[in-house]
């Protein structure tokens, strides 16, 4: 009986360690597979090289990093005000019934698979940019031209995809602000807008910040939707209507036909991506821990 219990406890301990083993294996296999290329090219040249021509053996991923960062930045520019606005709406403005409906809608948005977002972008957004945005832009600058596959398309779709993350984490942060703050602010003669913008949002800022970091991580790591609508041209972009190739999209697309050395280079991109994501997650967790401590 007693030995039985001990064995079971061991099995459960081992299961809990599965996550550690998984992260360790992922790290080892990505690094071992990608390191040879980084070692040969040199980390600096690999990250700052502007020429990505894998078939001729030149691996510079600056255009891919620029691609990933530009769509992510675009998504944040659209997603932060929208997401924080929605969070304020849910936590402070809407009544219970409306908030309930709205919450289900956000959950639904979070459940749509990324490949469906990509398909929607491909079939609706990309043609829409080609036929409506371009004529408008041409009034200002007649040289503008685009296929529609662009940073703009990627940013809009990504903004929708990171919205649920930003909203849910921000709502928790706003709800964690003590009721006293609101009452004190209103008692001092501030109206509801002033209470929200000058008291509640500043008090919830570290939680909102964490939501943004998490959203950013999701945006950089997103693959399918971006792959289908950004055009996949590994050149440094000059405007938001230019096509770009992202790190994730390049890996997903080129893995299917890559030669062995090209595959290694794609794993090397994986290393860079992995490091960025882990850093962002560590920052978000540290911020949330501080914010969790402050709220309680």
């Amino acid at each position: 009986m007693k030995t039985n219990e001990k064995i079971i406890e061991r099995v459960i301990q081992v299961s809990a360690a599965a996550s550690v083993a998984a992260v360790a294996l992922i790290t080892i296999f990505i690094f071992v597979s990608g390191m040879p290329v980084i070692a040969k090219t040199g980390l600096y040249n690999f990250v700052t090289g502007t020429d990505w021509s894998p078939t001729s053996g030149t691996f510079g991923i600056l255009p891919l990093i620029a691609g990933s960062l530009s769509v992510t930045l675009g998504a944040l520019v659209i997603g932060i005000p929208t997401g924080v606005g929605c969070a304020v709406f849910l936590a402070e403005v809407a009544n219970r019934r409306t908030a309930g409906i709205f919450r289900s809608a956000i959950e639904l948005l979070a459940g749509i698979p990324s490949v469906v977002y990509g398909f929607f972008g491909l079939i609706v957004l990309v043609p829409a940019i080609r036929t409506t945005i371009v004529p408008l832009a041409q009034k200002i600058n007649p040289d503008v031209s685009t296929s529609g596959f662009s940073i703009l398309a990627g940013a809009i779709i990504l903004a929708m995809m990171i919205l649920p993350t930003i909203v849910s984490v921000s709502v928790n942060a706003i709800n964690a602000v003590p009721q006293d703050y609101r009452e004190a602010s209103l008692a001092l003669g501030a109206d509801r807008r002033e209470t929200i913008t000058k008291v509640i949002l500043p008090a919830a800022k570290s939680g909102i910040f964490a939501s943004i970091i998490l959203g950013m991580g999701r945006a950089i790591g997103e693959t399918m939707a971006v792959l289908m609508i950004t055009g996949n041209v590994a050149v440094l972009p000059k405007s938001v209507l230019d096509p770009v190739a992202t790190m994730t999209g390049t890996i997903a697309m080129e893995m299917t036909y890559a030669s062995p050395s090209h595959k290694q280079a794609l794993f090397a991109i994986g290393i860079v991506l992995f490091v960025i994501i882990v850093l962002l997650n560590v920052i978000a967790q540290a911020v949330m821990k501080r914010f969790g401590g402050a709220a309680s």
Partner: protein
Amino acid sequence: MKKKIQSHMFFGIIWLVAGVTLAALVIIMGFILVKGVPQINLEFLTQEPRSMGSEGGILSVIVGTLYVTGVAVLLATPVGVAGAVYFTEYAKSGKIVDTVRFFTEVLAGIPSIIFGLFGFAFFVVFLGLGWSILAGGLTLAVMILPTIIRTTEEALKTVPMAYREGSLALGASKWYTISRVVVPSCKSGILTGVILGLGRAIGETAAVVLTIGGSLNMPFSIFDSTRTMSVHLYLLASEGISQEKTYATAALLIIIVFIINTIANAIGRRTVNG
């Protein structure tokens, strides 16, 4: 007076933002469903694809999806539930637990394409499973593990301490208490986690596309190559194979994910209320 106008503008913007978000959802869902649902018929659901998927149905793809997600859920559930039991029932707070928890969080944040690369390097090449249902299922199992651990943990935390104390006071051992009292009393919460994991697995593309190959043939064993509905949708859309079949696949995928999430929510809500 100025204050009042500013206030009206502020709340106007908040309502506008909320409205735009709701509209975006309605447009995406509406567009896919309106275009796709009329294309879904008996032939689409019961026939195998012909000429690269431009004709016929998607029966082999549905079977492939069931296989891959089934393998993932069957493998991830026992490990994930046991991991959660460890965190809530066995672990005493300390460095080791903090480390394990940190790694679980890291695992949850890793993007799917990294899982795909890992699955390819480890399961497909290193373990020699080739592009197969097993390799894809294993990759997805690792990916949905954090979802199952987290949800199960939340469920276990809702079980009152008194249940455990009552069972232990009656002379039951720790494991007997966990397996006969604690876990059964929150099994719907655990089920929610498993269903959410299933939903994630069905919707996933990037991790699967690098590990299961993409064959359209009807799979027979877990060592066969296949494709899931998400992968099928990606390949149809990116290669412009057939508009009707693409819309139909997208609509079917949304409907399935929607049903899965609704079931998970319904069970989850019942747990909270009960």
